[in-house]
């Protein structure tokens, strides 16, 4: 579990500050921490990015591989998203198979990328029903300082926009792969995710580690460029009201516009 045990007294001081409209690190309630984004950081990966939101740091690598399409979707390529909450990233992360937090992170990121239609998967078909490109997207979380969801979505988008695959031609029965002609994978959309935490009855953007530990509820919202919703996930053990959900979408629509500035031009 990511959530660690926090003394009640810390929780109180975080809540009190937020109810006064302030935050421990001096940010406004709807303000993100500093974001940094580099792409192409791993030469051995066909696409990569290193993203930092505050001190949270994720290295994302994308590797294409030729494989068979799923039987029920013979005419689209395959995207496989995987995440590892490395034991290096926090004192309470453990080595071993992905735990539920890690699985949720990978699946929500995957939904944001997939339903947000980042990749034109139909263009990844080499031979319909038989050979397609599979893109393995691996999220390597190396430092955990809160708000993994937004960092994962941003890093994944950047890594995919950075990804190149070799061009292929079909000669007779054979697929010929030319590693000297690398072409970018077809990018259709650029969805991003914005996470808001409900603390002391308020919604605050980009929860820090301290806020993550004391929050009542979390809502992560994936949005396309036009502000339409492509993914959503509530977390935490306190409910949200209908109005809080709708308010969260409005805030997220504003904040993703800002976040979008960190994306390098394709």
């Amino acid at each position, binding site marked *: 579990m990511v959530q660690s045990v926090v003394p009640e007294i810390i929780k109180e001081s975080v809540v009190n500050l937020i109810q006064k409209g302030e935050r421990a690190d001096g940010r406004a309630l709807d303000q993100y921490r500093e974001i940094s984004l580099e792409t192409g950081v791993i030469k051995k990966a066909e696409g990569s990015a290193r993203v930092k939101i505050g001190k949270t740091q994720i290295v994302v690598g994308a590797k294409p591989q030729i494989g068979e399409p799923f039987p029920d979707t013979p005419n689209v390529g395959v995207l496989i998203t995987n995440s590892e909450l490395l034991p290096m990233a926090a004192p309470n992360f453990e080595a071993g198979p*992905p735990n539920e937090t890690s699985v949720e992170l990978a699946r929500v990121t995957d939904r944001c990328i997939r339903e947000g239609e980042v990749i034109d998967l139909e263009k990844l078909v080499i031979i319909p029903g038989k050979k397609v490109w599979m893109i393995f997207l691996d999220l390597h979380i190396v430092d955990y300082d809160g708000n993994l969801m937004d960092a994962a979505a941003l890093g994944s988008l950047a890594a995919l926009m950075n990804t190149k695959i070799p061009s292929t031609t079909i000669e007779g029965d054979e697929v010929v792969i030319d590693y000297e002609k690398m072409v970018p994978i077809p990018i259709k959309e650029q969805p991003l995710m914005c996470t808001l935490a409900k603390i002391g009855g308020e919604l605050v953007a980009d929860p820090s580690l301290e806020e993550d530990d004391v929050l009542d509820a979390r*809502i992560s919202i994936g949005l396309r460029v036009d502000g339409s919703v492509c*993914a*959503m996930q*509530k977390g935490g053990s306190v409910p949200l009201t209908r109005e809080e959900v709708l308010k969260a979408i409005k805030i997220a629509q504003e904040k993703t516009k800002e976040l979008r500035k960190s994306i390098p031009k394709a």
Partner: protein
Amino acid sequence: MIIILTSKLIKNSNKGSLVTSGTKKRPDGRAFDEMRHLKIEAGVLERADGSSYVEIGDNKVLAAVYGPRELYVRRLLKPNMAILRCRYNMAPFSVEDRKRPGPDRRSIEISKITAEALNPAVFLEKFPRSTIDVFIEVLQAEGGTRCAGITAASVALADAGIPMRDMVAACAAGKSEGQVVMDLSEWEDKEGEADLPIAMMPRTGDITLLQMDGHLTSDEFEKALDLAIKGCQIISEEQKNAIKNRYGD
């Protein structure tokens, strides 16, 4: 050698084969705000402390509750409250193509969010240093099993006599063939444009589970959210009836 499935596709799209052009009816004949056939029973198993059986459309789901009870792995216990654990599982024969037994990434995620959906309703602080275990078995899946599972789990918790603020009800809405609709069928879920499953405590309107994937404008989202809320209210009545049928008023 290639295997051709002559009419597997036709077989699979049965739910979609009734498309009625020109009307607002859905492939299976329902109105946009109409729920599938619904059946809820409490107390269906002998050994469990509480249990229930739910059918929504062709979904068939069993839920069982054990606890509050002590756990031998002591370091997982909390000194001031119970922990509620949930295991959502699909029977290998519950889906078109046999599912390999054991947890996969989908069931791990659903187990987690189901626990979070039920948590706010249970007075966990009444049972320090103990666990409440919720087991959900999907015997047949036809779109919307996570909502059916949460709905069943709440009834099983009530059947186990565990004190709750409210029985959590769950229902999805979404968008299919351009229309915002309540309670997506399997066909609508697969072929549709968006899916929005929620869980709530109907008495206060508090939302305890919220997920979405697909493509909705803000307006469509609001409309879908309201349809899902309406669905939860319908389900909530049936949950109460199930408890009444078992224990009287």
